[in-house]
């Protein structure tokens, strides 16, 4: 049971003014802005509006600001980076219970396996003085989401009880604040009754109620993934992402580099992003995942009502109603969307779009701050591809598994993910292959041996080597899928490891003969014992020298003798461009390879690499965290995986 005090309205003002005058804190609270309300810095207690219905945007901005410097860098020195860490203690006053609950949810995301230091510091340095709801927004349905009241998550909670305020103490920090700055009395029985009455009175002010209880959202959404309502409603979507900008449980972000006009210094900036925007999923090659408007629209509801519930066990909507207010065509309000599904079918399985997997995140240093590394060797592979050997300057081995990736930073240009192309090693050197497609890749192609770059990782899960041991291996790659596949092949064919695997069949296809990479190594692979290596190109023009197959990658499969393969004891690994998977997997199934023996590695826009920014999400899973390697049996139920 929380301790409860009371304070007169006058003393509450004095308390707040004392906090403002004490220069130890920055004090923020709810203020009016025209007919609406915002969280803003308080200069005097009289500005505070505890009678507000809802603020335009939630207090998440104090923990994940709209625009935030993650680090400063110096472009004149080849690698100098300084993470930002100024955060003054803050007090935020007037947060409604639904926003407190939203913050608790955000904590799960930002403080779970990989802590976000920037968020964590702000969270630790902030005192939350919540306020019970007095007036209810027309669009709020918090009462039917059970988020209209809360008994935790705050340091102090204010309740207006007629001529004074009750203060519920939620933490030691809150208690200390009262002791130091406020004149309070112990609450009497009658005061506690009044708190209850005040809350009951507020309850009657809620006009909106969601017809589908939130516990049922995950079940109903799963069964209605293909419902027509997504398309029907999204036809009216302006794709402005206003719904996500004002949402207290939307926390996706983008990262950009800004540089000074003389190119001497710069900063890496984090800013809010929204999944309703088409470029949200766009990768370097230009591919856009979730290209259709209805898919993006649906994603938002699934993220709130199914994906996050499957991951964390909470519905990520707190019923504040802000999106309903912000959406011009009025199609964003979950109360209406979920209510319209109230009598729809339910599924028993809520985790269909999610893969439960314990992934140890390897990034141990400060989130987003890369480690310094040096380019040691550059080898031209094709006209547009180069192989880079890189070494961490701390001389520690990267410690990666085949299939894992790293984020490469070039300050002033940006950061991009690259699959590791070299096998695990005890030395600090590792390799990536890079096709010139975007800003970072183009810049890498201009760089020379000795140049400094930043590295984060290894990231992602990588191949489960244990599952491959004792089996025949059928390793299929297309195009740049050969980069990560090379890491696995070189590991498997390594003399130390070769005995752990049975026959190895390597199938590799590219568009044209000149695009076949690592040809010298392939000749060596062919010489290995019990190893078959077959190549194909989509087309071969006159004058091009090519002695192997011509045709799509699938033309190689009939050439494999199934009897020799022992399909039940074969593990197939597939890495290639998005279009390749469907056809290759069909061929594998025809050969009798069970789905659970098939592993794929998928590409998406892995921006943060630590399961936060949201860009790489395939339905409920993060490619950067639960991937990029997936067991086909697990991922085949995710409609966005092979669309």
């Amino acid at each position, binding site marked *: 049971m929380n301790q409860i005090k009371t304070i007169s309205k006058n003393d509450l003002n004095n308390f707040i003014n004392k906090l403002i005058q004490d220069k130890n804190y920055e004090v923020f609270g709810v203020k009016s802005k025209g007919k609406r309300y915002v969280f803003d810095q308080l200069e005097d207690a009289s500005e505070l509006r505890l009678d507000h219905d809802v603020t335009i945007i939630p207090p998440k901005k104090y923990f994940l600001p709209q625009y935030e410097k993650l680090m400063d860098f110096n472009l004149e020195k080849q690698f100098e980076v300084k993470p930002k860490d100024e955060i003054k203690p803050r007090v935020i006053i007037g947060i409604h219970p639904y926003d407190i609950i939203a913050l608790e949810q955000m904590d799960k995301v930002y403080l779970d396996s990989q802590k976000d230091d920037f968020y964590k510091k702000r969270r630790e340095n902030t005192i939350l003085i919540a306020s019970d709801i007095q007036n209810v927004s027309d669009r709020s349905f918090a009462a039917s989401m059970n988020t209209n009241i809360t008994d935790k998550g705050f340091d102090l909670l204010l309740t207006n009880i007629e001529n004074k305020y009750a203060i519920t103490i939620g933490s030691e920090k809150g208690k200390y604040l009262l002791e130091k700055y406020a004149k309070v009395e112990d609450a009497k029985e009658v005061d506690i009754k009044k708190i209850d009455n005040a809350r009951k009175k507020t309850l009657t002010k809620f006009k909106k109620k969601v017809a589908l209880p939130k516990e049922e959202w995950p079940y109903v959404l799963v069964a209605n993934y293909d419902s027509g309502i997504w398309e029907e409603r999204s036809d009216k979507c302006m794709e402005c992402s206003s719904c996500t900008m004002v949402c207290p449980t939307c926390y996706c972000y983008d990262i950009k580099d800004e540089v000074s006009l003389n190119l001497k210094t710069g900063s890496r900036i984090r800013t809010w992003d929204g999944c309703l*925007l088409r470029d949200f999923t766009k990768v370097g090659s230009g591919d856009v995942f979730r290209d259709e408007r209805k898919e993006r629209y649906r994603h938002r509801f699934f993220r709130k009502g199914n994906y996050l519930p499957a991951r964390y066990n909470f519905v990520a909507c707190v019923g504040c109603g802000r999106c309903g207010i912000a959406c011009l065509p009025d199609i964003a309000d979950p109360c209406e969307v979920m209510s319209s599904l109230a009598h729809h079918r339910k599924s028993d399985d809520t985790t269909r779009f999610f893969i439960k997997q314990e992934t140890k995140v390897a990034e141990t240093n400060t989130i987003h701050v890369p480690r310094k590394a040096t380019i040691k060797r550059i080898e031209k592979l094709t006209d547009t591809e180069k192989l880079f050997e890189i070494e961490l300057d701390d001389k520690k081995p990267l410690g990666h598994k085949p299939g894992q990736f790293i984020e490469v930073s070039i300050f002033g*240009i940006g950061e991009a993910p690259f699959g590791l192309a070299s096998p695990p090693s005890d030395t600090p050197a590792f390799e990536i292959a890079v096709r010139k497609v975007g800003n970072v890749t*183009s810049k890498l192609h201009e760089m020379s041996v000795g140049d400094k770059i930043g590295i984060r990782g290894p990231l992602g899960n990588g191949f489960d080597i244990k599952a491959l041991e004792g089996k025949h291996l059928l390793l299929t790659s297309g195009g740049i899928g050969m980069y990560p596949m090379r890491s696995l092949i070189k590991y498997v064919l390594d003399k130390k490891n070769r005995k752990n695997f049975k026959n190895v069949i390597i199938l590799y296809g590219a568009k044209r003969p000149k695009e076949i990479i690592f040809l010298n190594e392939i000749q060596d692979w062919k010489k290995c014992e019990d190893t078959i290596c077959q190549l194909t190109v989509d087309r071969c023009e006159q004058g091009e020298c090519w002695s192997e197959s011509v045709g799509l990658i699938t033309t190689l499969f009939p050439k494999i003798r199934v009897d020799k393969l022992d399909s039940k004891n074969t593990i197939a690994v597939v890495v290639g461009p998005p279009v390749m998977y469907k056809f290759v997997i069909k061929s594998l199934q025809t050969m009798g390879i069970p789905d659970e023996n098939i592993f794929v590695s998928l590409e998406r826009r892995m921006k943060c690499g630590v399961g936060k920014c949201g860009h790489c999400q395939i339905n409920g899973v993060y490619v950067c965290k639960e991937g990029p390697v997936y067991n086909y049996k697990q991922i085949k139920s995710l409609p966005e995986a092979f669309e």
Partner: protein
Amino acid sequence: MKQKPRVAIFDFADCEGCELEIADLEEEILELLEIVDIVSFREVMKEHSDSYDIAIVEGSIMRPMDEKRLRDIRSKAKILVALGACATTGGVNKIRNQWMHDEVIRDVYGDAPVHGNELFDVFKTKAINEIVPVDYYIHGCPIDRDEFKHVITALALGRKPEIPRYPVCVECKKNENICQFELGAYCLGPITRAGCKAICPTHNSPCEGCRGLIKKAETECVWEVLERYNLSYEDIRRRCTMYNYGKEECQVDE
């Protein structure tokens, strides 16, 4: 040291306000000069050279003589950047495309003897990408100085500038503004390219679409909003006349 890129800034039909925004960088101009040589910039300097790598072109094209000059600039520049709404969409100069140009000349100059004078020989106003290929765009009326800096530094670093392809609402929401529609105004923010930090709605003036439209005015979602706020298609058409006359959709830099 690598030679600094040579930059020339040119203007056509416009108010030169975007050039003024560059001039208004004040001491930062000195930083700019550390990375580029400005070889022509009529608004602030007397010197001029025809040898340049990057041409920054402000203004819209109104006359055959402008077209000729623009083609000449394009032929000399490796990179051509359109500066400001007049150059990127045709801007306010396109308003006159609603009328026959004889009519316009008569209205403006009356009986003055302008016939046969090439300075008054006008055709329909054009954005510069209607005449020559444009490599990069700096949108706005006027431009946003930070975006100008972003484009210049990106080009200097050999990186493609990132110009938003989402609507002004994104930035407007981040600024915690009360929606202009909620205030009873009619704002083009939802269909206009962001990048201006939603400066107009933030200062309580609805968006006029100066950075170009990113969505067709005749889509279902726009109809829905018009209907909800008791507006007609005529309203939106009239509103788009200011900066986007004759443009149903911004097709630049896709």
